[in-house]
């Protein structure tokens, strides 16, 4: 995990102290944990609803009951959120790159 031989070791404290890093970290964690809470709740709501109520047992389209529609929704949600994550993460990558550049400018000054 060591840096290159001809470079000084990375000063992690200095990066952690950067305003831009703090902001990125805060926004990123907020996004990740909010979405995680949401998809876990939506997911666990299915067995809760099917175990304690009958509302998803009713027919929706033809003989297809609402549990299947809800399940289809979970598939769509998984793929949708996976791609949402990627597009968010790509923009976080750019910010992280800018942070490293900011740090390197500071070191080489």
């Amino acid at each position, binding site marked *: 995990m060591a840096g290159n031989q001809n470079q000084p070791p990375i000063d992690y*404290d200095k*990066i952690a102290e950067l305003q831009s890093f703090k902001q990125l970290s805060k926004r990123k964690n907020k996004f990740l944990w909010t979405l995680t809470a949401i998809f876990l709740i939506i997911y666990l709501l299915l*067995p809760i609803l099917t175990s304690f109520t009958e509302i998803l047992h009713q027919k929706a389209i*033809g003989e*297809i009951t609402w549990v299947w529609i809800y399940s289809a929704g979970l598939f769509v949600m998984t793929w949708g959120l996976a*791609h949402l994550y*990627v597009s968010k993460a790509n923009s976080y990558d750019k910010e992280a790159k800018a942070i490293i550049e900011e740090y390197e400018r500071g070191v080489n000054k």
Partner: protein
Amino acid sequence: MSVTAVVMFLAIVGLTLAITWWASRRTSTASDFYTAGGGLKGWQNGLAISGDYLSAASFLGIAGSIALTGFDGFFFSLGYLVAYLVVLYIVAEPLRNLGKFTLADMISARFDAKKVRGTAALSSIVIVLFYMIAQLVGAGALIQLLLGIDYWMAVLLVGFMMTIYVLFGGMTATSWVQIIKACLLMLGTVIISFLVLAKFDFNILTMFSEMTTATDAGQAYLNPGLKYTNGIDTISMLVALVLGTAGLPHILMRFFTVKDAQTARSSVIWATWIVGIFYVLTIFLGFGAAAFVGKETIVEANAAGNMAAPLLAQALGGDILFSFVCAVAFATILAVVAGLVLSGASALSHDIYGQIIKKDKVTEKEQVVAARVGSIIISVISIVLALGAQTLNVAFLVSLAFCIAASANLPVIIYTIYWKRFNTAGAVTAMLTGLISALVLVAVSPNVWNPEAGKAIFVGDPLIFLTNPAIVSVPLGFLGGWIGTLLSKETDEAKYREVDVKAQTGISVQDVSH
């Protein structure tokens, strides 16, 4: 056993051995052995993750469960899929940015203590063994049925093959066996699903309406409740499924085979699409088996329903498709157990031998030798255990592995990445509380105790009603880590800042040459 089946089995064996021979010439360092040199592309690793993940429990188990219990079987598909969001959102990228070969590496990036590494290695090995026994028992039963050989011979055959792959080809061979298996499995599943749909005139509505009369359950077949009648127990099982994946050592290990967090990210996207499509198709496998094979024939072949998919293939596509699907099932098992051996060996040889006993003072050559010896040890232990575990229920063993992974590994992973105050004592207590509570709760559960003789391992009343204790043991794992942390005064904020910066920016990975 037809000639076609023998030819297809031999083709799988021949192809995988050729890959192993090719991979063996590219495996000279420890990094080659454990991570294929970290050089896999996103799509390759995505396919390999799918190949690692879609085990016999998914292919044979879920198809059988849906065939026999309707929607209740489909719960597994949902849990196993949504689990990928947990992997993607919370675990994949920080893990790639912090770790080297194993989960213990990642936790040790923050807490460099022998007891932390040792506990992490221990819980990894326990999970791997449970998972592997499940796969080997399933494999033994399946091959016994298909080839007409004895159970012990079937287990030895699979055990021998997996040891060869890992021993000579390391992660490179394992990855390519998994990639090919994923393609074959998808091909087989798509063909069967197409044939099932054709039977229903390519109309989903027709399929559902015919399913209301196809089984003796009638309308109830299309709703939950045929098998899982206890709400809390159902929720508990679904908790284990969704949180367990992010703690499974052989899945986590796959993220070290790519060069950076971006590639780890794209491999999860690939995997999410592939396993997602597969899990959609499990509906057709299950419904098809229920409608065109029938409950009686399925149960007659195997009480748990594991033969539903191969039998369906036979009903729709004759001997050729049956042989093909059986060969695919064989490849499926081989690919999963090879990944398991490798992750067990990494915990044993890299964590326990290399880092703890030898204190990282091992040459490259010694590391590779240790990795190979570790692979043999893990293989032999699991083969011996599997030979004695023939009567255990496969689905139970797999769900137990998921439960331990969710309880012992996930809390410590999350705390390590996201909690500043977390410390060495907390890391150890989190893992031990999760591991022990999961094991103890299962030991007193209805899986192990049943008042009726022959229904479980022991005769007697279970102490708890939960068949899967995740709803209790996962919170206990988090609680154990929290209490352990607060009871110890130790904090090291500078170290956390380092871990946080590394996890979020990947700055250290870019320096590491693979």
